[in-house]
């Protein structure tokens, strides 16, 4: 019995001037599923996800959320619907501490005239969010840029999760991380899934994709080259799909 789809993107087209970044792309995401989105540089992965998060607009195509067609015209609408994107370049404030970043843009304040920050409440809430997700940040009072890359990534994920999202999009969450930290971030990703969140993860690291995802979409030159159940594929096949042109694959198969 197939689980219902939380998200469907249908026939998405997007061009930047003459450059066709996405051509007729279809994607489905099931409830509580993790899908991996892979492809060579400039394949269109980030562009597709930015359309979903409201940062870009598709030229054509439609998006269905829980079976209903939706118009995601700006990032705020996406957030309201429960779609959180963690951008490739994190988008945290390096000069602020963990609570300040978790609550950025929705600070707890005294009402209504002079808007003093209720720091204590935000700090306590931060501790409980970090604890719930088992995120290991010893001293949340430190500036973000004093934390390790993995901790920063975890804070970004914690921030996204604290909005109670239905869907979390992660763009290259393990790029530039030390090996130990990669493990922690992937564990965290799997924990989100346990909390019932559906996840789309973009990564160049196939090991990571294979570790967490249920299905894998391969994007190539802006088109979906293949969709594979993780259990029914392997890294070699995915790599071929990512980098070889269709006729080359044909030729190979003929030779085998």
């Amino acid at each position, binding site marked *: 019995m197939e689980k219902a789809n939380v998200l469907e993107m249908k026939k998405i087209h997007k061009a930047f001037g003459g450059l066709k970044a996405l051509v007729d792309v279809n994607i489905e995401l099931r409830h509580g599923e993790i899908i991996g989105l892979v492809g060579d540089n400039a394949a269109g992965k980030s562009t597709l996800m930015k359309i979903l998060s409201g940062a870009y607009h598709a030229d054509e195509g439609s998006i269905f959320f829980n079976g209903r067609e939706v118009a995601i015209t700006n990032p705020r609408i996406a957030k309201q619907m429960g779609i959180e994107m963690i951008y490739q370049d994190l988008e945290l404030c390096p000069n602020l501490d963990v609570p300040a970043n978790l609550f950025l843009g929705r600070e707890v304040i005294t009402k209504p005239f*002079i808007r003093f920050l209720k720091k204590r409440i935000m700090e306590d809430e931060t501790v409980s969010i970090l604890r719930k997700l088992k995120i290991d940040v010893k001293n949340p009072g430190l500036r973000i840029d004093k934390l390790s890359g993995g901790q920063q990534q975890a804070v970004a994920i914690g921030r996204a999760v604290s909005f109670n999202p239905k869907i979390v999009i992660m763009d290259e969450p393990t790029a530039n991380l030390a090996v130990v930290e990669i493990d922690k971030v992937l564990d965290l990703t799997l924990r989100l899934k346990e909390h019932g969140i559906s996840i789309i993860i973009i990564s160049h690291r196939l090991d990571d994709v294979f570790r967490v995802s249920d299905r894998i979409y391969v994007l190539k030159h802006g088109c979906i080259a293949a969709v594979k159940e993780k259990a029914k594929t392997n890294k070699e096949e995915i790599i071929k799909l990512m980098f070889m042109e269709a006729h080359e694959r044909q030729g190979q198969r003929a030779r085998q």
Partner: protein
Amino acid sequence: MNSVNNPENNGESISGFKIKDYAIYLIMLGIFIVFAFFLRNRGFLSIINLMNIFRQTAIISIMAVGFTFVIASGEFDLSIGSTVALSALIGSLMLQRTGIFPSVIAAVAVGAAIGFVNGFFVVRARMPSFLATIAMMGIIHGLARWITHLQAIPVLNDRFTYIFGGGNLGPIPTLFVWTLIVMVFGQIAMVKTLFGRKVLATGGNVVAARLAGINTDKVKWVLFIIMGMIASLAGLLYTGRLHAARYTYGGQDLFTIVAAVVIGGNSIYGGTGTIIGAVVGSLILGMVNNGLILFGFSVDQQVIFRGVMILVAVALSPSAPKE
């Protein structure tokens, strides 16, 4: 584990009293001790001289507080010096015709208007703030010279000079009262309020701030207006202290203010907002200046020294953000 609740590690760390910031206090103390020793026979420690240092740094400190906000948001306002002069002149011209209240309003309105225009060029026309405000500096300076034909405008209103930096409230010069008010308000606004948080977020990572729903353009625009108004207050204080307005007021101040803010531990790349540091920075500069005079250095040598101090402070200050 519970370190979030440890008072030493809470949100204050972004704004004020942290280990690294103690360095300035130690530097200030060190300079004070050195001067107190070597200049003991030249009157450095006399009450009159110390009061004089405070008096000379008070107005710089006030503007340094405003400048800290602007720089914290990642922008510059180089027009403040000439705003000081134009506000002083307009205020004094008004004082010759009307009472204190409308004159003060007029002077502050001048600063607010200049700030509004600065904000417009930066936020709407997307000009780099150092360019927009340096152009404004020229325009305002020209205006200030032109409307008064380089003449000083005397101020004979005793109430005005009393309130604006010429009088004493008990033993305390009103000048210090103004400084204290601006400093305390600045510190609270930066550390305790939503506005301060928005300023620091804007200066820390403008994209992140915008994605989080902060109207960073509005934040910057408001800051330019506040900065203009603070420069106007400085103009009124110069006028009250010296019983006249001159187009030269504030002309040399920009350099000192930037130096004070940077020495105080603020990054020129934005994202830091150490108000108390900025005030301490201006005290250090005032003290060094005073000491150099007592040692017998010339004005030119003092200017050179201040330049060197800026270079050292920038070299030691938080580095450029990565990328």
